[in-house]
């Protein structure tokens, strides 16, 4: 996979920009970045625009990140899209819930570009 189409889901537009910058700093070539402010918006965006990678917060209004990942797992066309959580929720309970629901990675905020590289590159088939 060369260029990546990424979906960044976070209710903070500032954090969406920081995540996008971190992906570029990690060495990913981004063909397109789609943004969503919550899980419901993210589901609608996926229906319109196919993506290769999803970075998702947990605490969001309307539909939180865990519900989004669980719902995503039930959508046939979305199965196989890797999801990496990026969140302030650092408890083991949240990590287990996210990974059980189908997330492929988990990054706690605050995060360094190195952590993004370590957790994101392997799920898109690149060496970290």
């Amino acid at each position, binding site marked *: 996979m060369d260029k990546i189409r990424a979906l960044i889901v976070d209710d903070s*537009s*500032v954090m969406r*920009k920081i995540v996008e910058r971190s992906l570029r700093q990690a060495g990913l070539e981004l063909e397109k970045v789609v943004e969503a402010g919550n899980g419901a918006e993210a589901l609608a965006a996926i229906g319109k625009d196919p993506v290769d990678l999803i970075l998702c917060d947990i*605490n*969001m209004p309307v539909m939180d990140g865990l519900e989004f990942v669980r719902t995503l797992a039930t959508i046939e066309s979305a199965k196989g899209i890797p999801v990496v959580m990026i*969140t*302030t929720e650092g408890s083991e309970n949240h990590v287990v819930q996210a990974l059980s629901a189908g997330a492929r990675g988990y990054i706690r905020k605050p995060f360094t570009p190195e952590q993004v590289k370590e957790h994101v590159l392997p799920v898109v088939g690149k060496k970290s």
Partner: protein
Amino acid sequence: MSTDTSLAVRSQEENWLPVLELAVEEVFEIMLGCRVKPVSQAEHHPSTEFTAMVGLAGALCGILTVCCDKETARELAKCMLGPEIADSEEEVSDALGEICNMIAGNFKNKLAGADGQCMLSVPTVIKGEEYTCYSLADGEQLETVMLFGGAPVAVRLQLHS
């Protein structure tokens, strides 16, 4: 010492101020690329022109606030985002809210036993100093002031007993 190890009891028995200070220092260093250290609260009085708030609910209940003046809030946003994209007040508020959110999350993640027992609200940001905040948090209050670019930034945690 009480045998009750609940977080509410521990907040009264343990000194959590160094934990809060470390949580603040890490967020500033990792996300803003700058080192901050606590300074004397008697000598530095932060403005409340910009106030970000995040609620804590569950085993640890209360509110965490971050206060600073308008110019400092703008500089914080520039540090997070870069100089070209932190011009609007909306982005400045969003950035301060996220800083508050990350400090709250980092703090609770450092407390042994808080694992999965405490939830955070989405951030709220108030602009302007003409307000009075009544919190139902009636327990411990921790406060630290950090200097950012020479200007004071206050981080306050008010807990429900």
